[in-house]
């Protein structure tokens, strides 16, 4: 199991490490006071990356090759003059400028130096030099359907989920809020919409099944069964089990199908975790109780996991990147908007809260 967790917060990046048999402690703090939106621990070379969303000075990327002891600033994705954000919800077109690096993933094992970054506005960027330079993937930016995407929560659409197929890194899927799921089988040379089967309750009835308007909150892929995906969507939970299949809606999730985060077991595609909340405009735990919903049978049934989680007057919301599972599938962690951080070593049966009052947590990820 992984003993190191990177916790990205409104006020810095915290390295949380296992301390003895049961405890965890904050082992290091970086960028204290700065807004850290996301971190990546690259499994290929052990590099760490941190996305800084500086309120005045824009998004910055930092890279560490010594597990956070030192950091160096690298390049960020950039749009070109003439690139426009055109949305499907009636807003006037505006020049595309980088608002947020919303997702950052390593390429395949056979692609050293390859990184993918998804942004607000909805651009996918590729680097082949570990972030020293970035290129907009114009094949996706130029799909005509992009003009129908729109923001979910943010003013502009964004790419928050990037799944690279571990069998063949040329096959990848990205999820967009709100623009469905886009898939490439040829290393990004061509793309096709892949959100068929999803349902958008917030759209007029005649558009509700349009894959291009689906507000996916987060999408994950099972490492050991890469044709299996789970998605937490704005109005439901969806699952897909075969590469050509449509998504299937799962509607029996207690206490709610609303939420942002989802994690899937790295080998067992039938096991997934969610952190439900009260839909949609309230976004607080149902009845003030923080719970994790777990299925171990592909969504036919769910357990509501509560041991070690606050069950009274808790108003923690868990964002889309703030729930993670490690490579063993046994260790999980999630962090909340009110600075709670909970870690489990037994697949979610029991949780222990980190003894700290953290800033709002935006993302957690295991390192190694």
């Amino acid at each position, binding site marked *: 199991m992984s003993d190191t967790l990177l916790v990205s917060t409104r006020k810095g990046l915290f390295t949380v490490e296992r301390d003895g048999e049961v405890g965890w402690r904050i082992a290091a703090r970086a960028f204290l006071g700065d807004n850290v939106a996301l971190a990546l621990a690259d499994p290929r070379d052990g590099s760490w990356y941190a996305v800084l969303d500086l309120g*005045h*000075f824009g998004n910055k990327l930092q890279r560490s090759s010594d597990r956070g002891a030192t950091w160096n*600033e690298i390049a960020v994705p950039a749009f070109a*003059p003439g690139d426009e954000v055109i949305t499907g919800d009636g807003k006037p077109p505006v020049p595309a400028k*980088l608002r947020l690096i919303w997702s950052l993933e390593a390429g395949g094992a056979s692609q050293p130096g390859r990184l993918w970054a998804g942004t607000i506005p909805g651009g996918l960027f590729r680097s082949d030099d570990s972030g020293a330079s970035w290129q907009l993937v114009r094949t996706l930016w130029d799909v005509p359907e992009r003009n129908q995407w729109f923001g979910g929560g943010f003013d502009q659409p964004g790419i928050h989920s990037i799944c690279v197929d571990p069998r063949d890194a040329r096959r990848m899927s990205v999820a967009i809020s709100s623009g469905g799921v886009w898939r490439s089988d040829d290393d990004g040379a061509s793309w096709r919409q892949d959100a068929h089967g999803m349902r958008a309750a917030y759209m007029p009835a005649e558009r509700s099944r349009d894959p291009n308007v689906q507000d996916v909150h987060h999408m994950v892929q099972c490492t050991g069964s890469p044709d299996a995906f789970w998605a937490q969507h704005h109005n439901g939970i969806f699952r897909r089990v075969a590469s050509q299949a449509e998504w299937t809606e799962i509607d029996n999730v207690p206490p709610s199908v609303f939420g942002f985060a989802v994690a899937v077991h790295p080998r067992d595609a039938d096991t997934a975790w969610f952190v439900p909340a009260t839909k949609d405009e309230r976004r607080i735990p149902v009845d003030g109780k923080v719970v994790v919903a777990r299925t171990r049978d592909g969504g036919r049934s769910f357990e509501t996991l509560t041991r070690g989680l606050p069950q009274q007057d808790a108003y923690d919301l868990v964002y889309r990147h703030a729930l993670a599972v490690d490579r063993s599938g046994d260790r999980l962690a999630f962090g909340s908007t009110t600075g709670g951080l909970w870690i489990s070593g037994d697949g979610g049966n029991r949780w222990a809260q980190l003894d700290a009052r953290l800033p709002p947590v935006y993302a957690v990820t295991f390192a190694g």
Partner: protein
Amino acid sequence: MARIILAPALARWLPGAPTGVSGEVALELHSDRLDHVLEALFARFPNLRGYVLDEHGEVRHHVAIFLDGNAITDKSRLDQPLRDGSEIYVMQALSGG
């Protein structure tokens, strides 16, 4: 000669920058235009460009540039003349805090 001062909030992101007691960077540069001064500054601190300007070359929404006491208002027109002894302050706008 123009004098340019970078606020501490900016200067702390510049590796090797000669910061003063209060954390700011103050430099004297020969130029008669604001954009030329900025380019000279970016040549010295390459990563600074992305902190002051966005990818289209406009001063960032939450960055303010004061030229001889007055904030520039057109953030896309930086070819403004300087006088000998002009003072330029580059700082974070309070609006972004």
